[in-house]
């Protein structure tokens, strides 16, 4: 296997490198990718068309919003997939008790506990800020969602899984994830119902107190919130499945 | 230019037995009604075929295009002389065999009779479909359908022997038809771009090179392996594990005849005899056929199992037909077309006799049949007539076709092949005549002394005896009145010139 791998790697590497000399220089402003009307349009027209200064957010949630919806679905799928692969009823687990188990209903360490107590709300607040301010600064639904999810992971790490589950029980996690995507696609379907293309937010100005361009901006915020919901839920769900080996009982 | 008439009749003639499947399956629990349905379908089919006879004899053809299935390529039917001839043989013999198979199946209390009759009917549909196919494509469709529909019949007994026989059967037939015919077919389609309709002058000329033509000819000749041409013949003795009616109808009449019929079609309708003559490639096939004739006759001599001996005899006789076609002279082609009918009648008689013997006595081997003629006089009388016809002796129809073949060989200037005809006729006589002779005049003096009396006969049931008597008589009638067959064959050959 090793020699095969080596051959495969050398061949692929050679192939990839052979094209490198044909590439435009790194940082070249005149390179086709940077010079083509596509990226030019994204840079110059994003704000006029959507009134969002963060081009990445605008392209992500509007121009390529369809992609992003499926990106959210990827996360959702990962969550469901991991759950369906790994999840088992606790009963199952009791049968093979012989394996190494590390049940420590631990006494919370004072320093860790206190730090986390302090940190978690701040992290969550920051996450909300990242979501909400994605239009103007780096960030958005994904990052915010992951950070929010991470706050629960931190909780689960510092205490144990049950502690975190009190906040986000398994059932609610799944519902939250679904609702997230539903929010996202809901914007899309609303556009369809109003007679426009899927995810063509402009039409939403009919039901929003906003101009068409602002409707885009607002809708983007909406879908980012949807993304954040899904990310939060799924990140925590993946963690809890992986950390408990699927029985949702024990933590690391 | 012969006129052509558009009519649904040929389609119906093919479909009628397929439609009969429904009542046969539904009436599976009531044997009498079920067989009634079979008979009804058989008679309707025969009637339909006969109804077209006058038109064909008048020199017209009947056509019907069902469905254009691939661009420029349709499932289409057309009845011409050759098709009519074959259609007549197959449909008339179906009636006879139906009666016979009822006797046989009931006599032996076979299992799964409904399945048997169902696939029997489907096979007949396919056979008539082949007979009336207007183009190579339709021909191929029905050819494949026949291979598959006969598989359950061949393996009817569902025992180990049947499995082996069935395996050989399908292996040979499918591998040749998929491996040889299909590529040849598509090659022809690609090269000519035509609808591949048979025409008396062929449709290949001008589209392919000489070497391609040779390859195509060989692909087709070997591809239609139902014709039993060596070296693709060994499925045929293997398939003799089937119940005798199946052997009788399908392996003496329908299946193998479909094989040679297809080859005849290829020679006369696809290449056209003139084109083949120009290319001078048919001799190869002629010699392969000649070799098959002699070799199979020799093998037949050594067989003790009656059905196997008949099977090898069939292999040889089929090659007569191929040989006739490959000689390319008008008379030879006429001879080989008529031989389809003559041999069919003769061979089916022989097979039915073999079956009747088995039903009555359970005997399969020739060595056991010493003196049996005294117990089964009708059967063995019919057997002898059938044997004469197959050998080609008067007063049977076999003589007519052999005569045409031999004179055709002379026309073609193939005197070497005349020797083959001679040798094989002697061999035919050597392996067929002694059976009948021994049955009546046993070697064993013990048996020879027994006095003959009608009261001590142990014939099989009447459903078995009647059909074989009919076909035996038919063999003689065809000697006396072969005209309409010759006329049908002449239609094809005449159109050639």
């Amino acid at each position, binding site marked *: 296997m090793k020699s095969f791998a080596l051959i495969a790697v050398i061949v692929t590497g050679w192939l990839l490198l052979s094209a490198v000399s044909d590439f435009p220089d790194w940082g070249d402003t005149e390179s086709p990718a940077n010079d083509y009307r596509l990226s030019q349009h994204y840079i110059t027209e994003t704000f006029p068309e959507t009134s969002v200064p*963060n081009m*990445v*957010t605008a392209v*992500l949630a509007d121009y390529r919003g369809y992609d992003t919806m499926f990106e959210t679905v990827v996360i959702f799928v990962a969550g469901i997939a991991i759950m369906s692969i790994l999840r088992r009823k606790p009963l199952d687990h009791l049968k093979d008790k012989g394996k190494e188990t*590390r049940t420590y209903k631990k006494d919370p360490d004072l320093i860790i506990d206190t730090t986390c107590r302090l940190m978690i709300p701040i992290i969550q607040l920051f996450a909300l800020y*990242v979501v909400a301010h994605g239009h103007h600064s*780096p*960030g*958005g639904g*994904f*990052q915010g969602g*992951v*950070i929010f*999810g*991470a706050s629960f*992971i931190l909780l689960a*790490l510092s205490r144990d899984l049950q502690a975190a589950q009190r906040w986000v029980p398994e059932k609610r996690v799944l519902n939250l994830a679904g609702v997230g995507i539903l929010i996202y696609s809901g914007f899309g379907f609303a556009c369809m119902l109003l007679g426009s293309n899927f995810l063509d937010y402009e039409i939403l100005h009919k039901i929003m107190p906003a101009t068409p361009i602002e409707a885009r901006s607002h809708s983007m915020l909406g879908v980012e919130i949807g993304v954040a919901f899904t990310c939060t839920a799924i*990140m925590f769900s*993946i*963690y809890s499945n*992986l*950390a408990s*080996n699927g029985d949702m009982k024990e933590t*690391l | 230019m012969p006129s052509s008439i558009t009519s649904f009749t040929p389609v119906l003639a093919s479909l009628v037995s397929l439609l009969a499947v429904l009542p046969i399956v539904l009436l599976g629990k009531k044997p009498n009604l079920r067989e009634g349905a079979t008979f009804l379908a058989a008679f309707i089919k025969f009637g339909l075929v006969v109804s077209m006879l006058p038109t064909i004899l008048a020199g017209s053809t009947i056509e019907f295009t069902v469905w254009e299935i691939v661009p420029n390529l349709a499932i289409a039917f057309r009845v011409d002389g050759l098709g009519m001839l074959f259609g007549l043989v197959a449909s008339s013999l179906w009636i006879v065999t139906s009666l016979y198979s009822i006797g046989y199946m009931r006599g032996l209390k076979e299992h799964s009779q409904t399945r048997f009759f169902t696939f029997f009917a489907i096979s007949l549909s396919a056979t008539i479909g082949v007979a009336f196919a207007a183009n190579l494509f339709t021909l191929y469709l029905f050819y494949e359908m026949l291979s598959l529909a006969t598989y359950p019949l061949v393996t009817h007994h569902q025992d180990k022997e049947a499995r082996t026989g069935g395996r050989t059967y399908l292996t040979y037939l499918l591998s040749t038809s998929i491996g040889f015919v299909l590529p040849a077919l598509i090659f022809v389609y690609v090269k000519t771009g035509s609808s591949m309709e048979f025409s008396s002058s062929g449709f290949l000329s001008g589209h392919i090179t000489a070497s391609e033509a040779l390859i195509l000819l060989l692909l087709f000749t070997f591809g239609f392996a139902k014709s039993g041409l060596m070296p693709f013949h060994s499925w045929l003795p293997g398939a003799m594990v089937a119940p005798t009616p199946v052997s009788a109808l399908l392996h003496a009449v329908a299946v193998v005849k479909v094989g040679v019929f297809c080859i005849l079609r290829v020679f006369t309708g696809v290449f056209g005899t003139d084109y083949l003559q120009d290319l001078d490639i048919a001799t190869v096939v002629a010699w392969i056929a000649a070799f098959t004739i002699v070799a199979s006759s020799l093998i037949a001599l050594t067989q003790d199992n009656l059905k196997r001996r008949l099977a090898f005899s069939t292999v040889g006789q089929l090659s007569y037909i191929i040989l006739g076609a490959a000689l390319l002279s008008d008379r030879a082609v006429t001879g080989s077309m008529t031989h389809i009918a003559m041999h069919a009648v003769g061979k089916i008689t022989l097979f039915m006799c073999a079956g009747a013997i088995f039903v009555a006595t359970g005997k399969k081997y020739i060595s056991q049949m010493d003196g049996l003629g005294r117990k089964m006089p009708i059967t063995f009388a019919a057997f002898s007539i059938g044997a004469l016809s197959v050998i080609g002796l008067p007063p049977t129809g076999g003589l007519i076709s052999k005569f045409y073949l031999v004179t055709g060989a002379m026309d073609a200037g193939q005197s070497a092949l005349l020797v083959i005809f001679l040798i094989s006729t002697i061999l035919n006589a050597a392996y067929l005549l002694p059976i009948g002779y021994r049955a009546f005049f046993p070697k064993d003096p013990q048996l020879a002394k027994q006095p003959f009396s009608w009261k001590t006969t142990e014939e099989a049931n009447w459903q078995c005896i009647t059909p074989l008597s009919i076909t035996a008589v038919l063999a003689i009638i065809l000697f006396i009145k072969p005209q309409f067959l010759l006329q049908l064959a002449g239609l094809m050959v005449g159109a050639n010139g």
Partner: protein
Amino acid sequence: MDTQRREGGLWQMIWAFDLITLIFLVITAIISLQTKDLLSAAMIFGVYSFLMCLLWAGMAAVDVAFTESAVGAGVSAVFLIATVLRTTRRSSD
């Protein structure tokens, strides 16, 4: 407005920074794959991700860097560690 462009020296610095980070990236990648202890491998993978995130930030891809720091260096590493603890730390290669 031009003051916001990262002209001249700043750009050169970015270039140097880029180069050094790339070399470190290769090193961490190799170490992470060669370590027999899976827990260390997971940790070093976290380092790798973090370096990657720095690199991208240097290339003005702030959103990507942000995501990578949250997802790659953060959550991915946690997932890996969780799995290592749930299975086994030893690795034959």
